[in-house]
């Protein structure tokens, strides 16, 4: 079915699916950046000795999102 669509339309369906995946991950990265920024602001509002741990998790979360982007770029 997919081969038929590809032959008929002349472009790769999975290429478009990949594009959507990449777009979704880029949006997720933006969300992760917002979270890092937000954790910083929240930490300024209420500063606690545990804030570094939450900040670390936020940065780790952003790093994972970037890693997933790279992974998607390579394997899709």
């Amino acid at each position, binding site marked *: 079915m997919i081969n038929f669509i590809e032959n008929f339309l002349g472009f790769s369906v*999975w290429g478009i699916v990949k594009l959507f995946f990449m777009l979704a991950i880029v949006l997720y990265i933006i*969300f992760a950046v*917002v979270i890092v920024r*937000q954790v910083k602001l929240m930490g300024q509002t209420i500063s606690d000795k545990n804030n570094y741990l939450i900040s670390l998790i936020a940065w780790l*979360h952003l790093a*994972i999102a970037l890693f997933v982007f790279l992974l998607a770029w390579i394997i899709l």
Partner: protein
Amino acid sequence: MPDIYVAPSRKKKKTIKKEFSLKTRRNKEIKKIVDELGEKRTKKLFTSFIFLPKNITFETQESEEKIILLLRKHFITNVSWILITILMIFAPLILRWIPLLEFFPWRFKFMTIIMWYLMTTAFVFEKFLSWYFNVFIITDERIVDVDFVSLAYKEITETKIDKIQDITFTMGGAVRSLFNYGDVFVQTAGQIPRVEFEDVAKPDKVAKILNQLILQEEQEKIEKRVR
């Protein structure tokens, strides 16, 4: 002609001494409240009822202001999203019985699952941040309600202790009685007529602490040592 020698003013020394005695007196009063309540300083990492928190400060805190109580919603209020998270973790197992992604090549299937878990992580982190940073603070001078409504919007409500007119607390329902949490409503004479502490642990103790602080504030007013 400029002065060659200026004698140090005694007045300044006196005010420093007075401030120092006020500070020690205030500390003694706080200690008295602590003793009366029989509550110990909280040392746990992530908890919802922190009495005399150490190493915690807030944005608008004054140098001499002391945090008596820091409250979050009771941990049990997190159970609903924790259960949703558990469901989200095991949700991809459904694909074993219902082959929704069968027509997908393996790499797309793999990435879909990875993205699902990313979204689960985001959901957990967002909920945790919302619980951790939405706090109610009671200091020896005022009460502060810090609300992060969304990722981009924060609301801070403050009321001076001497503006408090009435304190009510409710603790209805089986779950609330079982886990000892409820709402504390503070009626004020200020611009914000009512400050609500929702789902806080030990609402009776919160009300008691507030009452003690009001008494202390009234005492200060009588003795004319209001800061």
